[in-house]
């Protein structure tokens, strides 16, 4: 079992994640855009377009405009998620010493890394609980929700709780050993899986999340970009030399896709 979780599942989950996301993106991008979907007012020029999408991506601008409370929790959740992903990559790779680059001592850097990680973990936990509460307490959202919508939050919560468990209890995790192990996975030179059950439980849940993600609504992160790209496209200018699409849904006698 440990062997499966440590040596086989990561490749399986990683493979499903990459293939699943790739397949999703490919099915969208191969689908034609027969009509411009621009939502007026259209941004003028590439710079404005990037700013418009960037504001949505970084500060959730329209959400902030329409519902401050949801915005706070949703934004904090995503911000912490980004911090946690970044923190995992740098923290594990540099063993917490990444902030020495900013002039801190090794001790200080490890301490700061721990504080930031714990803080992000606690805040994302709080935001997920708040979002779960909103889903059950807002009558409209509750009725809109399918079981899978709850499962997604609960899965994230499970990942976060198991992660916080490592952080906040006295159970020390051997970070160098984990680094060696993860490195070995990536270079396909297997070493034995660290025998720490707290780590294993967290790690297992992350793998499940990765494999599940392309088939869940957490896919909205890719949908966001594909949709926003369409919504900010430059509107048609006439005269236009573009040839008509010949899709049967839009023209009598058109070609069936």
């Amino acid at each position, binding site marked *: 079992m440990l062997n499966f979780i440590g040596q086989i599942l990561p490749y399986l989950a990683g493979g499903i994640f990459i293939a699943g996301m790739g397949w*999703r993106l490919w099915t*969208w*991008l191969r*689908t*034609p*855009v*027969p*009509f*411009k*979907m*621009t*939502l*007026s*007012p259209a941004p003028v020029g590439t710079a404005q377009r990037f700013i418009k999408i960037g504001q*949505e991506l970084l500060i*959730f601008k*329209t*959400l902030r*405009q*329409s*519902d401050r409370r*949801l915005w706070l929790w*949703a934004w904090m959740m995503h911000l912490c998620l980004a911090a946690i992903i970044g923190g995992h990559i740098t923290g594990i790779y540099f063993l917490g010493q990444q902030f020495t680059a900013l002039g801190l001592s090794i001790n200080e850097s490890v301490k700061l890394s721990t504080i930031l990680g714990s803080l992000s973990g606690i805040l994302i936990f709080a935001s997920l609980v708040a979002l779960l509460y909103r889903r059950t307490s*807002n009558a*409209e*959202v509750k009725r*809109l*929700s*399918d*079981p*899978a*919508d709850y*499962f997604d939050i609960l899965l994230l919560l499970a990942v976060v709780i198991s992660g916080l468990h490592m952080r906040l209890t006295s159970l020390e995790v051997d970070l160098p050993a984990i680094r060696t192990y993860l490195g070995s996975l990536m270079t396909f030179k297997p070493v034995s899986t660290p025998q720490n059950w707290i780590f294993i439980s967290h790690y297992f849940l992350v793998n499940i999340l990765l494999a599940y993600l392309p*088939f869940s*609504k957490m*896919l*909205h992160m890719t*949908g*966001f970009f*594909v*949709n926003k790209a*369409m*919504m900010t496209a430059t*509107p*048609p200018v*006439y*005269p*236009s*030399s*573009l*040839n*008509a*699409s010949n*899709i*049967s*849904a*839009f*023209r*009598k006698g058109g070609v069936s*896709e």
Partner: protein
Amino acid sequence: MKPPMHVAKETDLAAIGFAVSPLQEQQQKTVGKLNELVNAMRSLSVIMETCTKCGICANQCHSYLGTDDFNNIPAARADLVRRIYKRYLTLRGKYLGSYVGAEEFDDQTLTKWLTYFYQCNECRRCARFCPFGIDTAEVTIAARHILSELGIMPKFMQGITANMIKSGNNMGIPKPAIIDCAEFMEEEIKEETGLDIKIPIDKPNSDVLYIPSSADFFTNIDTMIGAAKLFYKLGLNWTISSSILEAANFGLLFNLKVMSEHNDRMKEAALSLGAKLVIQGECGHGWRAAKMYSEGVNGPIPFEIIHILDFCALNLDNLQLRKLPLRVTLHDPCNYARAGEICEQPRQILRACVDEFVEMTPNRDENFCCGGGSGILMDEMMEIRMKLGKMKADQVKALGKIDYLAMPCSICKAQIPNVLSHYGIDIANMGGVMDLVGKAIVLNE
């Protein structure tokens, strides 16, 4: 469950080249057509997968706010299609069923579609406020298209399409009546200004083809008169065409093939008259269909297409306008402000034409729909239409005394007066923006 509108009968459908699918084929055909559209429209395929059910759209949709019906929440409305999509077109829906929100196709499915997709005004306000920009109007367009392909459509849509085929306009005005009406308007102008201003019909070798809404030859003649005066002042060689005396394109509102045929008609008329410029009259969705859809479905387009308000705003410096002593507000037609890049132009024109211009709140791309959008003008749906117009009524009420409500779209012009009288709001005059241009323009120096 009974749909809230009169549904077209088999003989009606035959008149416009549609047929009813037998009951036992409905499920298979629905799924087949849905699959076809998901593979033909990237927007739809993304929308089917991207909603997180955050519920933000609920409080941004005038349809839900006015009717308080759960299925009018944009996310819930889109789910009517999404549930079928998941069940029949995704593996997880097939095997996990209601856990992921999949639902079996049953004898109520299409009735629900007919009922609720005809309570969506395709106004795109949900797209404006959705964190991912999910545009429920795309799902509505797709669902109505599928319904019509199965021979299910409101009698209203069928009737308008039959008129379009027969006469080249939605009102069913035959050419002799068009000529009569143009002469009547010419006389009106002559009486008012003393000038011989022509409204040319099918005049060959015209530089400009003007495509008004047919209602401008019927109930909203001041809009047409305003346009005629503008063209006269600018010295244009222009004409209207009896083969397409209709800016509205109801195909966009129930069947995409009919939509492309309408745009073909525009293209043929412009080419046969030799027009280098097509000016579209005051019609919201018709402008969206012409501007946003022609390129992709009817291209190549060898002439320019511009909206009358854009054209007028560009030429403001060449016009002499006297300010009318009126307090005026503007209702932004959804398809201008959210789908057609017409937003500041009517404001520029109104500021030049009247003493006092006031904004309603919210406005521009955040404006609420009048509740008639996407062709929901059926008499039998009046009760629902009034609920759909509730947010608009509240907006207008908040402004206090208004002398003129400018609503440069024929559907808005048909809906808003009903809404305001229903909610007891008294406004002296309402109409297009070109109506005011016609009254403010100085023709004899």
